[in-house]
Protein backbone atom coordinates (compact mmCIF):
# COMPACT_ATOMS: atom_id res chain seq x y z
CA UNK A 1 0.00 0.00 0.00
CA UNK A 2 1.15 3.51 -0.76
CA UNK A 3 2.61 5.44 2.13
CA UNK A 4 3.48 9.04 2.85
CA UNK A 5 6.63 10.05 1.04
CA UNK A 6 9.03 12.61 2.39
CA UNK A 7 12.09 14.05 0.75
CA UNK A 8 14.86 14.40 1.34
CA UNK A 9 15.35 11.80 4.04
CA UNK A 10 18.45 13.50 5.35
CA UNK A 11 19.55 17.11 5.06
CA UNK A 12 22.59 18.90 6.40
CA UNK A 13 22.64 22.68 6.43
CA UNK A 14 24.71 25.46 7.90
CA UNK A 15 23.36 28.08 10.26
CA UNK A 16 21.40 30.85 8.54
CA UNK A 17 20.81 28.73 5.43
CA UNK A 18 17.40 27.75 4.10
CA UNK A 19 15.83 24.34 3.67
CA UNK A 20 12.78 22.97 1.91
CA UNK A 21 11.16 19.74 3.01
CA UNK A 22 8.63 18.00 0.80
CA UNK A 23 5.75 15.72 1.66
CA UNK A 24 3.61 13.62 -0.66
CA UNK A 25 0.52 12.35 1.13
CA UNK A 26 -1.18 9.04 0.50
CA UNK A 27 -3.45 9.30 -2.58
CA UNK A 28 -6.96 10.58 -1.73
CA UNK A 29 -5.82 11.95 1.61
CA UNK A 30 -6.81 15.60 1.82
CA UNK A 31 -5.18 16.72 5.06
CA UNK A 32 -1.46 17.10 5.72
CA UNK A 33 0.16 17.69 9.09
CA UNK A 34 3.74 18.64 9.93
CA UNK A 35 5.41 17.65 13.19
CA UNK A 36 8.87 18.34 14.59
CA UNK A 37 10.66 15.94 16.93
CA UNK A 38 13.88 17.10 18.54
CA UNK A 39 16.43 14.67 19.95
CA UNK A 40 14.91 12.85 22.92
CA UNK A 41 11.72 14.89 22.61
CA UNK A 42 8.14 14.06 21.81
CA UNK A 43 6.65 15.09 18.45
CA UNK A 44 5.34 18.65 18.36
CA UNK A 45 2.71 19.86 15.92
CA UNK A 46 3.78 22.62 13.57
CA UNK A 47 1.06 23.25 11.00
CA UNK A 48 -1.67 21.52 9.02
CA UNK A 49 -3.51 21.93 5.74
CA UNK A 50 -6.97 20.76 4.76
CA UNK A 51 -7.95 20.94 1.11
CA UNK A 52 -4.97 23.19 0.40
CA UNK A 53 -5.90 25.74 3.06
CA UNK A 54 -4.08 26.15 6.34
CA UNK A 55 -6.30 24.55 8.95
CA UNK A 56 -4.30 24.84 12.16
CA UNK A 57 -1.05 26.28 13.38
CA UNK A 58 1.07 25.18 16.29
CA UNK A 59 4.44 26.17 17.62
CA UNK A 60 5.90 26.97 14.24
CA UNK A 61 8.56 29.71 14.17
CA UNK A 62 7.95 32.73 11.98
CA UNK A 63 11.06 31.67 10.04
CA UNK A 64 9.11 28.65 8.82
CA UNK A 65 6.34 28.66 6.25
CA UNK A 66 4.42 25.93 4.53
CA UNK A 67 1.85 25.38 1.86
CA UNK A 68 -0.15 22.64 0.21
CA UNK A 69 -0.30 22.53 -3.55
CA UNK A 70 -3.06 21.59 -6.00
CA UNK A 71 -1.81 17.99 -6.13
CA UNK A 72 -2.01 17.90 -2.30
CA UNK A 73 1.72 17.64 -1.75
CA UNK A 74 3.09 20.01 0.86
CA UNK A 75 6.34 21.84 1.40
CA UNK A 76 7.83 23.18 4.60
CA UNK A 77 10.18 26.06 4.01
CA UNK A 78 12.66 26.92 6.70
CA UNK A 79 14.85 30.02 6.62
CA UNK A 80 17.62 31.44 8.81
CA UNK A 81 18.25 27.99 10.19
CA UNK A 82 19.40 27.72 13.78
CA UNK A 83 21.17 24.91 15.60
CA UNK A 84 17.98 24.24 17.53
CA UNK A 85 16.14 23.42 14.31
CA UNK A 86 18.03 20.14 14.12
CA UNK A 87 15.32 17.54 14.41
CA UNK A 88 13.25 14.91 12.68
CA UNK A 89 10.44 16.46 10.69
CA UNK A 90 7.46 14.23 10.09
CA UNK A 91 4.66 14.72 7.67
CA UNK A 92 1.38 12.90 8.19
CA UNK A 93 -1.77 12.65 6.14
CA UNK A 94 -5.30 11.53 6.85
CA UNK A 95 -8.34 10.33 4.96
CA UNK A 96 -11.09 12.69 3.86
CA UNK A 97 -13.51 13.41 6.67
CA UNK A 98 -16.39 11.88 4.74
CA UNK A 99 -14.53 8.64 4.10
CA UNK A 100 -16.61 6.90 6.72
CA UNK A 101 -13.65 5.64 8.72
CA UNK A 102 -14.34 5.20 12.43
CA UNK A 103 -10.80 6.26 13.31
CA UNK A 104 -11.16 10.02 13.30
CA UNK A 105 -7.65 10.65 14.52
CA UNK A 106 -5.74 8.13 12.44
CA UNK A 107 -2.88 9.93 10.80
CA UNK A 108 -0.41 8.16 8.58
CA UNK A 109 3.13 9.31 9.19
CA UNK A 110 5.96 9.43 6.70
CA UNK A 111 9.50 8.24 7.43
CA UNK A 112 10.61 11.75 8.31
CA UNK A 113 13.35 14.10 7.20
CA UNK A 114 16.32 14.31 9.52
CA UNK A 115 17.59 17.87 9.44
CA UNK A 116 20.99 18.62 10.90
CA UNK A 117 22.06 22.24 11.24
CA UNK A 118 25.77 22.78 11.73
Amino acid sequence: AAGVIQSPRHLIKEKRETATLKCYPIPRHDTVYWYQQGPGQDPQFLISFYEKMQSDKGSIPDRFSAQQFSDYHSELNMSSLELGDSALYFCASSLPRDAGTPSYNEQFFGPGTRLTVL
Partner: protein
Amino acid sequence: LAKTTQPISMDSYEGQEVNITCSHNNIATNDYITWYQQFPSQGPRFIIQGYKTKVTNEVASLFIPADRKSSTLSLPRVSLSDTAVYYCLVVPAFQKLVFGTGTRLLVSP
Protein backbone atom coordinates in the same frame (compact mmCIF):
# COMPACT_ATOMS: atom_id res chain seq x y z
CA LEU B 1 -6.81 20.22 25.06
CA ALA B 2 -6.93 17.58 27.78
CA LYS B 3 -3.65 16.72 29.40
CA THR B 4 -2.70 13.09 29.73
CA THR B 5 -0.58 11.33 32.30
CA GLN B 6 0.94 7.91 31.70
CA PRO B 7 3.85 5.97 33.19
CA ILE B 8 7.24 7.00 31.89
CA SER B 9 8.42 3.43 31.44
CA MET B 10 7.33 -0.17 31.76
CA ASP B 11 9.15 -3.47 31.54
CA SER B 12 7.72 -6.78 30.41
CA TYR B 13 8.71 -10.18 29.06
CA GLU B 14 7.83 -11.86 25.83
CA GLY B 15 4.44 -13.53 25.86
CA GLN B 16 3.02 -11.43 28.68
CA GLU B 17 0.06 -9.10 28.49
CA VAL B 18 0.92 -5.45 28.98
CA ASN B 19 -1.55 -2.86 30.22
CA ILE B 20 -0.69 0.82 30.00
CA THR B 21 -3.02 3.17 31.83
CA CYS B 22 -3.46 6.80 30.91
CA SER B 23 -5.18 9.45 33.02
CA HIS B 24 -7.08 12.29 31.37
CA ASN B 25 -9.20 13.91 34.05
CA ASN B 26 -10.09 16.96 31.94
CA ILE B 27 -11.29 15.11 28.87
CA ALA B 28 -13.93 17.01 26.89
CA THR B 29 -17.17 15.63 25.50
CA ASN B 30 -15.89 15.82 21.92
CA ASP B 31 -12.50 14.24 22.65
CA TYR B 32 -11.49 10.82 21.42
CA ILE B 33 -8.87 8.66 23.12
CA THR B 34 -6.19 7.61 20.68
CA TRP B 35 -3.01 5.60 21.10
CA TYR B 36 0.08 5.72 18.92
CA GLN B 37 3.25 3.63 18.86
CA GLN B 38 6.65 4.98 17.91
CA PHE B 39 9.90 3.18 17.21
CA PRO B 40 13.21 5.10 17.30
CA SER B 41 13.69 7.38 14.30
CA GLN B 42 10.34 6.39 12.81
CA GLY B 43 7.07 8.23 12.58
CA PRO B 44 4.34 7.40 15.09
CA ARG B 45 1.91 4.68 14.07
CA PHE B 46 -1.77 4.62 14.95
CA ILE B 47 -2.77 1.71 17.20
CA ILE B 48 -6.34 2.20 18.34
CA GLN B 49 -8.97 4.79 19.11
CA GLY B 50 -12.11 4.83 21.24
CA TYR B 51 -14.72 7.08 22.76
CA LYS B 52 -16.19 4.94 25.53
CA THR B 53 -16.46 1.30 26.63
CA LYS B 54 -14.16 -1.20 24.96
CA VAL B 55 -12.59 -1.28 21.54
CA THR B 56 -10.59 -4.18 20.12
CA ASN B 57 -8.65 -4.59 16.91
CA GLU B 58 -6.10 -7.03 15.64
CA VAL B 59 -3.24 -5.61 17.69
CA ALA B 60 -4.69 -4.17 20.91
CA SER B 61 -7.67 -3.50 23.12
CA LEU B 62 -8.68 -0.21 24.64
CA PHE B 63 -10.70 -0.08 27.84
CA ILE B 64 -12.48 3.14 28.74
CA PRO B 65 -14.56 3.45 31.92
CA ALA B 66 -17.87 5.25 31.93
CA ASP B 67 -16.44 8.51 33.28
CA ARG B 68 -13.78 8.52 30.53
CA LYS B 69 -11.22 10.01 32.92
CA SER B 70 -8.76 7.24 32.19
CA SER B 71 -8.10 4.54 29.63
CA THR B 72 -6.04 1.38 29.45
CA LEU B 73 -4.25 0.10 26.40
CA SER B 74 -3.87 -3.67 26.51
CA LEU B 75 -1.26 -5.44 24.37
CA PRO B 76 -1.75 -9.21 24.44
CA ARG B 77 1.28 -11.51 24.39
CA VAL B 78 3.94 -8.91 23.63
CA SER B 79 7.04 -9.74 21.64
CA LEU B 80 10.46 -8.11 21.44
CA SER B 81 9.26 -6.06 18.49
CA ASP B 82 6.71 -4.33 20.70
CA THR B 83 9.52 -2.44 22.42
CA ALA B 84 8.63 1.15 21.62
CA VAL B 85 7.19 4.38 23.01
CA TYR B 86 3.42 4.40 23.41
CA TYR B 87 1.53 7.69 23.39
CA CYS B 88 -1.93 8.30 24.79
CA LEU B 89 -3.64 11.27 23.14
CA VAL B 90 -6.98 12.89 23.84
CA VAL B 91 -8.10 15.05 20.95
CA PRO B 92 -11.23 16.01 19.03
CA ALA B 93 -11.84 14.35 15.69
CA PHE B 94 -9.79 15.46 12.70
CA GLN B 95 -7.52 17.69 14.74
CA LYS B 96 -3.78 17.95 15.28
CA LEU B 97 -2.21 15.38 17.53
CA VAL B 98 -0.82 16.68 20.81
CA PHE B 99 1.82 14.33 22.11
CA GLY B 100 2.68 14.29 25.78
CA THR B 101 5.36 12.20 27.39
CA GLY B 102 4.79 8.65 26.26
CA THR B 103 5.46 5.34 27.94
CA ARG B 104 8.68 3.56 27.01
CA LEU B 105 7.91 -0.14 26.94
CA LEU B 106 10.84 -2.53 27.07
CA VAL B 107 10.12 -6.17 26.28
CA SER B 108 12.81 -8.63 27.27
CA PRO B 109 13.32 -12.27 26.29
